[in-house]
């Protein structure tokens, strides 16, 4: 039996997936969810094999929800986004259904999924899509994290700095540090460049939080934040910082 979860904030959009999926007796829809928060819970409880996932949803969008998952199920996105916004999907061979979609188009997506499932071949890599997903608007102003089972939405204006931590990035704000499975390069490229500067291989800093810069050892500096945190600034980082601050 293949377990599936449908996540979409529009009830009628869920009902059409439900209608089409009824033709596949091997698939059981274990839960329907209204938003990403319910989605995360349902996925934790049911461990589904397949998700039908809308992108634009309340509070956290489909991508942000996926980022919170430890184990990634196969995903078929359902969205009304314009095609031009979906280049990233094609690049990573992740399947998506453009609303409104026909039964034939739905069946095609299912065939692809079932074929991979039967042959035990790998499903498309959604992680790579998530790295590219900032091409889709409305994400650069917040970072969604999960701590102790609770989902938090951190507006980027509240972020003090980001620090590399092995495979993770630690996002530091007034409430503490939160780990996020992303790369420094992702944040360097996707956070507003006027506010966030990669001052060091392992640090991106919010320039609004800097109170002063102090020389430190040879060729390097320390950025002192309002919170008192001291952030190392490399030689190259110092040049970038000066450019952004206009000094």
């Amino acid at each position, binding site marked *: 039996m293949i377990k599936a979860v449908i996540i979409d*904030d529009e009830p*009628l*959009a869920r009902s059409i997936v439900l*209608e089409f999926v009824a033709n596949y007796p091997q698939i059981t829809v274990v839960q329907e969810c209204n938003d990403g*928060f319910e989605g995360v819970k349902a996925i934790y409880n049911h461990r589904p094999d397949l998700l039908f996932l809308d992108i634009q949803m309340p509070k956290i969008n489909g991508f942000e929800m996926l980022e919170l998952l430890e184990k990634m199920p196969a995903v078929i996105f359902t969205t009304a*986004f*314009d095609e031009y916004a979906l280049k990233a999907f094609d690049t990573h061979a992740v399947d998506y259904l*453009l*609303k*409104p979609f026909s039964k034939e188009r739905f069946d095609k997506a299912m065939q692809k999924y079932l074929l991979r499932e039967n042959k035990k071949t790998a499903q498309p890599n959604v992680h790579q899509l998530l790295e590219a997903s900032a091409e889709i608007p409305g994400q650069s102003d917040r970072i969604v994290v999960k701590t102790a089972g609770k989902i938090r939405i951190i507006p980027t204006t509240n972020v003090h700095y980001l620090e590399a931590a092995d495979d993770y990035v630690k996002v530091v704000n007034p409430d503490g540090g939160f780990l996020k499975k992303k790369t420094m390069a992702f944040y360097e490229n996707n956070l507003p460049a006027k506010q966030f500067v990669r001052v060091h291989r392992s640090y991106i800093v919010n320039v609004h939080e800097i109170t002063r810069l102090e020389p430190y050892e040879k060729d390097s500096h320390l950025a002192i934040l309002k919170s008192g945190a001291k952030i190392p600034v490399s030689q190259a980082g110092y040049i970038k910082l000066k450019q952004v601050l206009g000094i």
Partner: protein
Amino acid sequence: MHPGLLQTVKFKIIFAICWFSITEVQAIVLTRFGFSWRIALLDSGISNLLLAGACLVIAKTFQYYNPQKNKYLFIIGLIVTLSVGWLFLSRGIIMPLAGNEADYVRYFSISFVLRLCFGLLITGCMALISVLWYTIKDQQETDRRKQEAETLARDAELYRLRQQLQPHFLFNSLNSINALIVSKPTEARTMVLQLSDFLRGTLKKDDDQWVSLASELQHLQLYLDIEKVRFGHRLLTIVENNTATDMTMLPAMLLQPIVENAIKFGLYDTLESVTITITASSNKAELTITVTNPYDAETSQPLAGTGFGLSSVKRRLFLLFARHHLLQTSFNNNIFTTTISIPQLP
């Protein structure tokens, strides 16, 4: 500024060839008259060098100054002045160098008129070439700018049409209809008709048209009804107006983006059910419309949140009435409020 005539390689080559040929011919002719090579080269070299200088002065002049009024008078004045100046200057320089040789002095006086004609001819040609060149360049520049302006206007128009059609809203509505067709055919039909009426109303409206609040609210109701089908019980709307406000007028398509913004903001920023209120009130001078929606103060950034369509509404109000602050936003107790004031024409 387009590149000057003097900067083009082609012109430089032609100019150099002409200069060499004329100088050479003049020198050869002078030797035929029995002058020594020294005198011949001195005469043709210096006078033509000075003439070339006069030509460059003309080209430079027209690069920076191309008069529209009395253009030909200006050209004639310029070439006469330059030619006469050139003639006296070349005599003043060549004579002492030639040692005031009697034959040469006589020859120079005889050829004086001929030289003047030659000078006028060459400077005249140069002036005409320059004028033609810079006129064409100006024309090309004007055409390019015109084309650019047209492209910009077309892009803006396309963008407006795209915005009007709201592909996201349209496709999601069609998706809802697609779902309803099997489960609730009657509701599907109702929604098709609502959607058609709404689209027809949107297409019919011109931005510079004024409509009554009653008809604008009627159009808006179609939109709200469609959104309610899409989002089910999550979306509630309250519209408060009265007979007095119904008669007031406002620019078409002004209220719509504000309500859209409120719905988007409300639905995507909270998880619970969302109530949108639209309240109209009026006095003699002004119609005031207030739109409220819930939002989450903790996670959204109010300053960034005022974005979406509101900035364009603000801009439109300013262009229409030349007054600031006709659109105001405020937030407290997790309620975001947008207020617009529309001055009523007497």
